[in-house]
């Protein structure tokens, strides 16, 4: 039997030792008559070789971002992962261990998390960061709850240019504790959150305003200006970053007046994997650390005075505070955080800045190439590595035609924004070669031509 080492003799030895004639005697506490009589209705077990063939076959029914040119982003980004990342996270001392509850035999995990926390602080220019959360969307929900604890107020204002699935997650999370959620409109010309819309929604009961930067349309927000509006009402400004490579180029939330920075760190070292596992990050100011959810690693010493690391501030967490914990979260996404830390470290400051410039340049090149075939950006705001265009035809039809040329041309926004019927969100990263981009623009020209007739 796979993975189970016992021989019949072993099983007999155990039964004898426990004084039972059969396994059934050990199961006497199970309700009589409810025990399953037949086997589960599942496929029969497979030897490893056949299993691998089956999985390979199943995986081959998918089309990868390597086989087609993909211009998809929208919260999940296709980036190059250096070989060191998978090589190192594949060390089984990392991936087969659990939560570092016993610090003496978990210093590897603990130091790696401590370094990850530091890297997140450096990227965002915030004081403290936690050991990671499930993903960007749930991190925003946790940040909103945290803002309520800090301010003692209830209202939550979400920018309408925040990722729609993030907004939906916040609403789901907060339904039990009273929603008080409103949305602030975006400017249909600039594609950015309207300060006036925030002013209109904000009140003395507003706990926080949540703004994504670069936002879901790819546009850059003016966080510094929004911060003034938000802080005037003594609410907190939460910045959401779904594409953290942008922090190699853009001023970080910590110097733009943000109180909590959250987002998605998948871009660093984690494959797309059809949407997960990714990793939510959260960073904040020192004064708010006790209201922060999630694990935290701190530096201390061992009994001989040697530098050591351990989990700390655990009294915030569910296993001690139970229903009064800052969150119900128990784990983090440790291995994803490790991958992110290794990728960040591989890049270093120079590498990250170059990668950010490269992403920006690819997107600008694509933007310009599309302009030459008559596809114009939908908004006038600046962007990082993704942007929204407005097409003259139904984007779904265009995307279908592009698929025939092995191009995944972006995300039609209609499913999230019924008003944006003709809009397409397009992303370019270092994974899109100049040749691919040129081919995309040419293909776009090709599929648009019939409409011009």
């Amino acid at each position: 039997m796979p993975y189970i080492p016992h021989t019949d003799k072993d099983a007999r030895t155990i039964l004898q030792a426990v004084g039972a004639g059969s396994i059934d005697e050990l199961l006497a506490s199970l309700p009589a008559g409810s025990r399953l009589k037949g086997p589960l209705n599942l496929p029969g077990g497979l030897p490893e070789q056949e299993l691998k063939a089956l999985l390979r076959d199943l995986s081959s029914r998918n089309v990868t971002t390597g086989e087609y040119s993909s211009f998809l982003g929208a919260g999940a980004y296709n980036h190059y992962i250096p070989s060191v990342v998978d090589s190192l996270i594949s060390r089984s001392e990392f991936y087969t261990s659990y939560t570092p509850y016993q610090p003496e035999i978990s210093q590897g995990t603990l130091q790696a998390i401590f370094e990850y926390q530091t890297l997140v602080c450096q990227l965002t220019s915030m004081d403290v960061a936690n050991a990671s959360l499930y993903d960007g969307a749930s991190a925003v929900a946790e940040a909103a709850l945290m803002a309520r604890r800090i301010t003692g107020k209830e209202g939550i204002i979400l920018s309408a240019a925040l990722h729609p699935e993030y907004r939906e997650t916040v609403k789901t999370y907060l339904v039990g504790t009273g929603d008080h959620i409103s949305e602030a409109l975006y400017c249909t010309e600039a594609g950015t959150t309207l300060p006036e819309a925030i002013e209109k929604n904000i009140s003395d009961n507003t706990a926080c305003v949540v703004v994504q930067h670069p936002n879901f349309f790819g546009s850059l927000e003016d966080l510094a200006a929004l911060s003034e509006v938000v802080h005037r009402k003594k609410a907190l400004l939460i910045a959401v970053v779904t594409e953290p490579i942008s922090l190699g180029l853009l001023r970080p939330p910590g110097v733009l007046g943000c109180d909590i920075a959250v987002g998605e760190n998948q871009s660093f070292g984690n494959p797309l994997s059809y949407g997960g596992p990714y990793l939510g990050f959260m960073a904040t100011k020192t004064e708010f650390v006790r209201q922060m959810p999630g694990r935290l690693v701190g530096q201390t010493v061992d009994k001989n005075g040697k530098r050591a690391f351990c989990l700390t501030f655990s009294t915030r967490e569910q296993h001690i505070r139970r229903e009064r914990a800052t969150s119900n979260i128990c784990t983090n996404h440790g291995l994803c955080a490790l991958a992110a830390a290794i990728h960040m470290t591989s890049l270093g400051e120079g590498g990250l800045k170059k990668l950010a410039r490269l992403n920006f340049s690819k997107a600008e090149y694509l933007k310009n190439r599309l302009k030459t075939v008559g596809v114009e950006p939908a908004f006038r705001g600046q962007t990082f590595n993704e942007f929204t265009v407005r097409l003259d035809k139904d984007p779904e039809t265009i995307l279908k035609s592009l698929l025939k040329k092995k191009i995944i041309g972006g995300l039609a926004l209609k499913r999230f924004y019924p008003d944006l019927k003709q809009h397409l969100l397009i992303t370019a990263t270092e994974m899109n070669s100049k040749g691919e981009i040129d081919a995309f623009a040419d293909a776009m020209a090709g599929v648009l031509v019939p409409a011009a007739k």
Partner: protein
Amino acid sequence: MSMNGAKGLLLEEPVIFEKSSPGRTGVEPASFDVPEADIEGIIPKQMLRGAIEGFPDVSEMDIVRHYTRLSQWNFGVDSGFYPLGSCTMKYNPKVNEEAARLPGFAMLHPYEPEELTQGALQLMYELENYLAEISGMDAVTLQPSAGAHGELCGLLAISAYFKDKGRPRTKVIIPDTAHGTNPASSHLAGFKVVPVKSEGRGVLSLDAIKGVMDRDVAALMLTNPNTIGLFERNIKEIADFVHKKGGFVYCDGANLNALMGIIKLGELGVDVIQFNLHKTFSTPHGGGGPGSGPVGVKKALAPYLPVPRIKKTRSKYSLDFNRPKSIGRMKAFYGNFSIMVRAYSYIRRMGAEGLKRASETAILNANYIKENLKGTYHLPYDEPCMHECVFSDKYQLGSGVATMDIAKRLIDYGFHPPTVYFPLVVHGAIMIEPTETETLETLDKFIVAMKAIAEEAKTSPQALKDAPANTKVQRVDETKAAREPILRWRKG
């Protein structure tokens, strides 16, 4: 008994920032094949960043050595016996790791059109069905990221059900043996927690539930087998009573490893269960995540599960967003897909017969440890256990030795300590879960070590107080960590 600290691996390793030398790059990004954009001309200066203060510049080889060294200070399932109760630290098959890394799974964007991801959708659809079959549930969502995330999802579905029927309920009953996530998730879902005590034999009685169950109670949230390692023998009568009062029974599926192919919780009156794929279904714990916490429900609750649901029409799979009663979303996209691939791979490798054998063997191993240690350590509930057993430090306290000392000494003997000080109802608890993947020889070695430690507690208690002796660091000052918090590295 030899002590297995490997002194050669205990070399110092600074934090990565202290190895930085400005200007170094580990792995250079790709080169510019498009013209470099005039950034300063396009983006206003006040939006651009200057230095990334403190970011480490390290060579590739230094990075490799750094993380390799760190990994050597860790103890994983691959390093040795890891009987961490409640966590099911079973072997993590290597073929699963390979499966998750197949390009056809790893290089899929979540917004790719459905026609390009039929294999992924089929895998998810089938995994949902397997989990439903194993637990006796009608519908399963794979979206939640972890056990606690699944709990929240299940409780929100229950809450939505009552709101939808026009009579919201406000309370959830939780036994004193529960994991801390249960009350925390209930609170987040908007429920008031009503605690209930387990009876003398460590299980819930129908009378105890009758005492607290009323028409404001949305659900009873129990764990079965419970955290003492005992099967909740009265579950059927209790569930019947809860149902009669219009409530649901939520089962924390953390301990499902005891039940596969033996009994279906759905047939015992459980209406909601979360599966911890990182426990029962062999996906690695990753040093603390990522896991995956799918949720199974009975028919009445299915309309409330998160969107999207996976649909099969003839031989085509698709994502169904049109679920008006759905609670919404627990996260972006569809869940921790690469963890699902590993769990799928595990179930296909084991088959029905293998899963049953896994649960039976887990029970045998736990009982073997229980029988062998029960004179040596205090066993508060002396009954046949399921997949784990709980001792206490009662016999050792007289020598001034407590559970923590026993746990730390086990490290010197080359074992990961069990879960300690949980469940809270057992003072000084030592919770041992051997799992089915350990050999009899390993169990015997562990038993010998535990007995040796009990002996040391009498003859040389100081050895336990000083333990562990052979590790990278010795006992860590957690008080200092909390009183003088250093939560990040700063240039000194």
